[in-house]
């Protein structure tokens, strides 16, 4: 499986962009946690994860992605068991559990589940490439995805369910989803969204949704002007942070919103605000451009993949990075309801970073084994 590797085809541009994003992220985490002594160990943790992640990229790149696809049954079962165990432990503590504690690490299986689902879909769409794109084809893909996603939904972790749904939908689309199905999907989606928003707005409880999630949705649609210190506080502080950054920012370590802790969860969910405050528009645009570049390199790898499963993997990873990035930045700028998705490669978080590095490793593996039209 290590044969036929030409490092000439390894995407060093993609690797470079990842290194740049991670380094920038770590730098910003350092500034963001500076005001809180208890959080300072996070800087080194993030650096260790980043270094381990880079190693992981090379290791995964070397291994042929088809090898993982061939192991899809054990991978699927292990992942399912992990998610089910997480769901059970959440039941035991009467609340949402997002991670297992392994030694000093908090492992979030959900982050890895997203990569697993990309692999599973890659196998499925390759296997069914000659099948008609009928409802049966769609339904089976949904069954594969749903088998894992149901436990995530029950955690409950709606944001990641949405991420998975988007990945599934985009991959369906790229694999030839019929337009009539698309339109019925869109119609159903709009209906579901409308119900969600409407129910949330009128404070009618919806199963699988936590009360706070519905409140967030309601707050997003119609912010309560009296709720400055309530639900809208964090987003308001994020907007102040971004807006006060101006063109060139307040300077590294000098953003008052970040350093005086007005900005909450500034090393994870709201790191984009911290960047925009301290580095201004220049920093904000840089982040968006790096993300765009990474997404483009993933899409490029997908186009040059030697087989369907390869291109689906790369498309899936691109979608994952794109969607999480856009939602996170959108939350920061108050154009998306608060969701808790991290900013890829930049937000603090070991599991999130590792799983994304894993994804990039897979994309590099696809790029290394590109189709033989290279002259």
């Amino acid at each position, binding site marked *: 499986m290590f044969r036929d590797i030409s490092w000439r085809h390894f995407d060093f541009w993609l690797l470079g962009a990842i290194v740049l994003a991670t380094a920038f992220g770590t730098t910003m985490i350092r500034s963001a946690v500076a005001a809180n002594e208890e959080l300072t160990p996070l800087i080194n943790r993030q650096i260790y994860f980043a270094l381990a992640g880079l190693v992981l990229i090379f290791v995964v790149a070397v291994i042929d992605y088809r090898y993982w696809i061939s192991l899809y049954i054990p991978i699927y079962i292990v992942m399912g068991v992990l998610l089910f165990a997480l769901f059970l432990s959440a039941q035991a503590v009467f609340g949402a559990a997002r991670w297992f504690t392994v030694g000093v690490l908090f492992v979030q299986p959900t982050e890895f589940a997203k990569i697993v689902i990309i692999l599973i879909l890659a196998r499925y769409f390759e296997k069914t*490439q000659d099948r008609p794109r009928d409802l049966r084809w769609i339904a089976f893909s949904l069954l594969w995805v749903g088998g894992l996603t149901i436990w995530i939904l029950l955690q409950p972790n709606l944001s990641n369910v949405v991420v998975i749904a988007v990945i599934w939908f985009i991959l369906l689309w790229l694999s030839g989803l019929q337009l009539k199905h698309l339109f019925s999907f869109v119609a159903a989606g709009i209906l579901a969204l409308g119900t969600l928003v409407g129910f949330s707005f009128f404070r009618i409880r919806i199963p699988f949704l936590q009360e706070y999630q519905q409140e967030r949705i309601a707050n997003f649609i119609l912010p309560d002007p009296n709720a400055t210190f309530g639900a809208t506080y964090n987003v308001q502080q994020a907007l102040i942070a*971004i807006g*006060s950054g101006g063109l060139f920012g307040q300077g590294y370590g000098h953003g*008052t*919103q970040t350093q005086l*802790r007005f900005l909450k969860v500034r090393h994870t969910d709201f790191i984009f605000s911290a960047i925009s405050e301290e580095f201004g*528009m220049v920093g904000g645009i840089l982040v968006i451009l790096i993300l*765009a570049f990474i997404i483009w390199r993933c*899409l490029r790898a997908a186009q040059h993949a030697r087989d369907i499963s390869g291109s689906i993997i790369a498309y899936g990873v691109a979608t994952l990075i794109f969607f999480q990035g856009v939602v996170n930045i959108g939350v920061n700028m108050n154009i998306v309801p608060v969701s808790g998705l991290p900013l890829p490669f930049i937000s603090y978080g070991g599991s999130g970073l590792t799983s994304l590095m894993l994804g990039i490793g897979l994309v590099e593996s696809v790029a290394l084994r590109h189709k033989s039209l290279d002259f």
Partner: protein
Amino acid sequence: MSSSSTSRYQTQPWRLWAIYGVVALVLGSLLFRLISLQVFQGTDWLEEAVENYTTIDYLAPSRGIIYDRNGYILAGNIASYSVVITPASLPNSQADIQNIYRNLSKLIDVPATQGTIEEAKLVAECVEGPGIEQLVALGESLAPYRPVKVKCDVDEAVARMVREGSVDWPGVSVLIDPIRDYPTGSLTANVVGFLGPIPAALEEEARAEGFVPNRDKIGYAGVEAALDQVLTGTPGRRTIQVDVAGQELRNLEPPVAPVPGNNLTLTIDTRLQTATEAVLLTEIKAWNDYFGRIRISSGVIIAMNPKTGEILAMVTYPTYENNRMSRFIPAYYYEQLSEDPRRPLLNNAIQAEFPPGSVFKISTATGAINEGVVRLGQEIFAPGQLDLCEKFSPNDPCTPNNTRPFVDWIYESNPEGFGIVDFYRCIAFSSNVCFYKLGGGYEDEIEEGLGIWRLGEYARAIGYGANSGIQLIGEQDGLIPTPQWKRINQGENWSTGDTYIAAVGQGYVLGTPLQVLMSGATIAADGKLMQPTIVREVTDSEGKVVEQWFNPVDFSIWVPEQIEDDRGNISGAWRNVGSDEIADKLPEGTYRISPFTENLKWDTTVDPVIQEYSCDAGYCSLNEDAYKVIQPSSIQAVQTGMRMAVTDPRGTLTRIFSGFPIAVAGKTGTAEYCDDVALQAQRCQFGQWPTHSWTLAYAPFDDPEIIVMAFAYNGGEGASVAGPMVIRTLEAYFEIKAIDIAQSGDG
């Protein structure tokens, strides 16, 4: 096959392009939003960021101290100790924290834990109930760096122990707040007053000046209220940067220190005040004991230097204990005071008006002699009673129906009356019949009486009918009735009878005890009406006397100010201390309160304050723009009459002043009144009227330096009830003076 083989390995390009399109669109809108936030709305958000971390802290200035004329403190500031915990400074370990709570709990007697945080939310600061843990937990959730008061107003000893303990208890400290202390308490409460919270109506204004409602206080009564602008000082200001938890990081602007309020020295002599209070209380108690019931419900004694207007003592009964209001105003105490029918919160010396009775004859006498109504040496027949007719218009005939007897006070003991008297003896004997004649005229004997118009002129000239302008709030202006006033307020024409009884200070005439005092003081000071004052001087925090002017209309304080105009010319102007308004001229009526000056309101023998009237057959018409003065000889004649009240064998004050070593002149008053209480007791009828007791006297007669006025509500005869009060106060004054002279002789 070839087409299917492409589809095997490649996505249809248009599907991919759609994806590219979506990506570009979404990222483009993110960029657009970013730019609009940072570039177009940047300054607004920056302002909000600045507002987030900027806190303005106003520092309370220390309030000026109030002294008496000898430097004795009447109102000072003392420390009130509160035990506080700063949640953010507590140790990390819960065990350590609980240990601190337990140890502290033993010292300050507040349970370490009691109730819930929800219950603690319902309780105001300093109110006992919640445990230490609950108070701290509540404070921590609001602002962890703000000290939480767990026990207010602890003993100094406890405060010291807590401070010693706090070495081992991080987060615990003692906060010192200044509170007002009144060493003389109720003795001077009516003059000094008390403080209270800034009322809601003034909150906005106070905030703008840098005062903090709920922390800073303002005067509610006495000079604490009237001269608040002098005492209050200027708050300091710190603009500081804080983090989200409220921890102070640094000064954003150079801090401005608070300017302490100016100190106030009053003209009150605490020794005389104490003696006078004793006189008033013992006399009232003696009479009430004698009658076996509360007859005299309130009383006033005021002592003043008639030549300077300095009030040396102002005692009112009943009064209140202003120390009980120093930390906060207890609701039960305030209710008790305000529901008391004797109205202890009222300063009866200036805030209540009464019929002056015979002491008002000073006005009538001055007018009658100055207008030539009567000549010195002219004989006036004063029988025990006089039949006079009540005429509502000049042409009313006198018939038995409208004629009734006007009785002299002597009538009961001697129906013959005083017989033939002269002007001096009219005053000395306080003959009502004589004053009826002087006031309203009588047949051929007094062809043209003084009349109500001219009587009013003289009454006003010697201090009646207007606010005195003293530095105390809530002053009443009394009432000098005119025919016009009667038509408007009583719906009836003025009658000749009204004039007769007004001439003896009855009927519609009302005056405050201070106005009565002023009328006597004007005579004592040879016709000079001095501005009564209780302020001796104002000093700054370093003890330097500062120049301050007082406007009695709105209680504003004005100080001289140099101003520079556009061309650089420096000119003098005046600045209102409260509003910072600059004016070229002082407002009308403003007078200097510091450094001390004798403020002359007017000299009746020099300033033409008496408007002229032409009178004929009891009816007077105004001579436009014609004013006259009171002749010094007229004043002298009244002085002689008042002196004879003490020296003539039949004088009203002769008996009680016999043996008094210093030459005194005075006037008594027994004023009939009718109020709700009297009405209920069915005493508002002829021969049954209850009477207020008045006496005023000044000494020494040749060169007066003290005038004392005593008033006893429902006291009865002036000479026997108020008279002794005046004598004993005069004795106290001269005794204190002798001590002072002896001491200065030693030094």
